[in-house]
């Protein structure tokens, strides 16, 4: 990687997505802030992890990046070109280069189409000829036999279906692939196979990954940098190694302490009370304060800003800024 690493492939700046419930006159009744002002950069050849609980907005971020939702505010740049504006004719060309692999392969592949038809579709839409060769090539990349072309999804195991999902994402030779929980529907052995396959493909094709998951141990293996999201905001982000070695934000600490691990080296488990609050009714001040083990009075009123914590990491927490030992 080395010199390439500085090349920014995706730049997200102040991204917001609000889902608004309006009455007939257009008055906003309820506003669900799914993604609320997040910014990050993804370098070429890197895997960027986004972690957080359900409802934290990580899947919405994926949808926004792949252009499946319009933005409320903010900017998404792909190689320096703004791709958030649909009216720009160039945008379509660039969007092809960002593809997505979905969480559950069973529901994201049409059960009534043969694998051949599923893989043909992207080529047909883009009016590309010699589909057959391309499909063989795709299947080879994901280590599946050619004979799979004439099978239906129900004849495939979960791992094989996810391979088809990956093959479909690779069809348009993308530069960025968004992986939305690619291994949460399969067991550990298949997960290991898929993770290794993804690593191989990444090296072969010089791809960048955005990995969305709640499994931190997968992030540790796959990613170089990670962002921890909570209720639509990034709480902490930076390179994987320093963050895993010494997380600064209390929420990150909680997440890390909750991973079931086989090794005996693990921090003492911190059990959070309650569920993630609803994104339509976000707590004031720091959004984590109602569940935070060391929340102070000022956490309820002031929203903390992102500050550098060294080693290229950033975190948004008052407690940490005041220089007190956390937890």
């Amino acid at each position, binding site marked *: 990687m080395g010199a390439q690493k500085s090349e920014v492939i995706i730049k997200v700046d102040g991204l917001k997505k609000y889902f608004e419930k309006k009455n007939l006159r257009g008055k906003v009744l309820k506003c669900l802030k799914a993604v609320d002002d997040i910014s990050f950069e993804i370098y070429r050849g890197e895997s960027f992890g986004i972690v957080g609980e359900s409802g934290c907005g990580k899947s919405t971020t994926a949808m926004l990046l792949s252009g499946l939702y319009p933005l409320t505010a903010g900017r998404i740049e792909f190689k320096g070109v703004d791709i958030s504006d649909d009216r720009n004719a160039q945008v379509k060309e660039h969007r092809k280069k960002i593809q997505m692999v979905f969480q559950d392969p069973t529901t994201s592949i049409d059960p009534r189409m043969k694998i051949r038809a599923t893989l043909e579709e992207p080529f047909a839409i883009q009016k590309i000829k010699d589909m057959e060769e391309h499909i063989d090539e795709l299947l080879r990349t994901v280590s599946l036999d050619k004979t799979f072309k004439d099978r239906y999804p129900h004849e495939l195991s979960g791992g094989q279906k996810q391979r088809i999902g990956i093959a479909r994402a690779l069809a348009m030779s993308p530069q960025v692939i968004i992986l939305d929980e690619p291994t949460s529907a399969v067991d550990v052995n298949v997960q290991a196979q898929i993770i290794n396959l993804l690593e191989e493909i990444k090296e072969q094709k010089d791809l960048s990954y955005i990995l969305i998951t709640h499994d931190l*141990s997968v992030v540790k293996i796959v990613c170089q940098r990670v962002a921890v999201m909570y209720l639509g905001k990034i709480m902490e982000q930076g390179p994987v190694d320093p963050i895993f070695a010494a997380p600064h934000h209390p929420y990150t600490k909680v997440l890390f302490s909750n991973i*079931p691990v086989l090794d005996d080296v693990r921090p003492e488990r911190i059990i959070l*009370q309650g569920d993630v609050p609803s994104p339509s009714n976000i707590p004031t001040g720091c959004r984590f304060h109602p569940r935070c083990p060391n929340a102070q009075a000022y956490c309820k009123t002031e929203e903390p800003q992102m500050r550098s914590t060294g080693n290229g990491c950033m975190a948004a927490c008052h407690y940490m800024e005041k220089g007190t030992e956390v937890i």
Partner: protein
Amino acid sequence: MDTMEQLLNVENLKTYFKLMDSTVMAVDGVSFLINRGEALGVAGETGSGKTVTVNSIMRNLPLNAYVTADAITLEGIDLLSLSEKQLHSVWGKKIAMIFQNPTSFINPLFTIEEQMTDVICFHEKVKNKQAVKTAREMLVLVGMPDPDVVLKSYPFQLSAGMIQRIMIALSLSCNPSLLIADEPTTALDVTIQAQILKLLGDIKAHTGGLILITHNLAIIKDICDRVVIMYAGKIVEWGDVHQVMYLPMHPYTKGLLDAIPRLNNQDKRLRYIPGNIPSAIDPPSGCRFSPRCMVAVPICFEQEPPMCEKVPGHFVACYVIRKERGI
């Protein structure tokens, strides 16, 4: 072990599904026992027969299933000889089950109170008022905030983590002798998973015994006393959790443990067991794991390895291990 009271005894359980022209041998000769107050973990890949094993104990199987066993006894009751009607008084009262996807096992049309009191009234033969009181106590036991509000809620108003807690409360409401949890945390986030696992650990004291099914061995290590590793409908290794986790003997157990991503993993590649689990219609002869086994010797392909006790309380079915240890 002699002083402990035996809770569940399963001997040579075989569950076959008859199809049009073939027989699926989903579970093929499984024996284990649980003592009172013990938690047993059942691990294995998808398709190794974990769920069918517990469903055979519950006798909760489709009509084309044929269950034979030398014995399935729970507290001295022969579960195999019970009639359909007698089974209804066993389900929920003697054996309770928690399912993988809680939202699909709860009726969306009734409030939590109606669903909980229904079960309690049926088994405990109490008046509705008393049942509501018990239901509320159970919700408090599983650490539910605002139990009165929750009782009046419909399932869609609650999060997946809360519904899983309700399922646990519901299964505990009639003081079952045996609690079976079938992948209780697969559908949940890490923080909620930690809450549920802590809860399961705590309620071990309230039930006679616990069977926990999962493919994540790290979860089993946290909660269970003993573990059974299943492969293709057979038990390949069983014993004390710490012995099996730290000194795994069967090549399959070693492979499963290697596939789990670890936080202190320096290597960016995961090791995994190549290939897929064999078809249960026509399983390989000899040791069922032999086609995928790295250390298989000729005898593995011909004869089925018997279960032998290598260390007291740690059983394994493998010829290679037998030879190594000179048994």
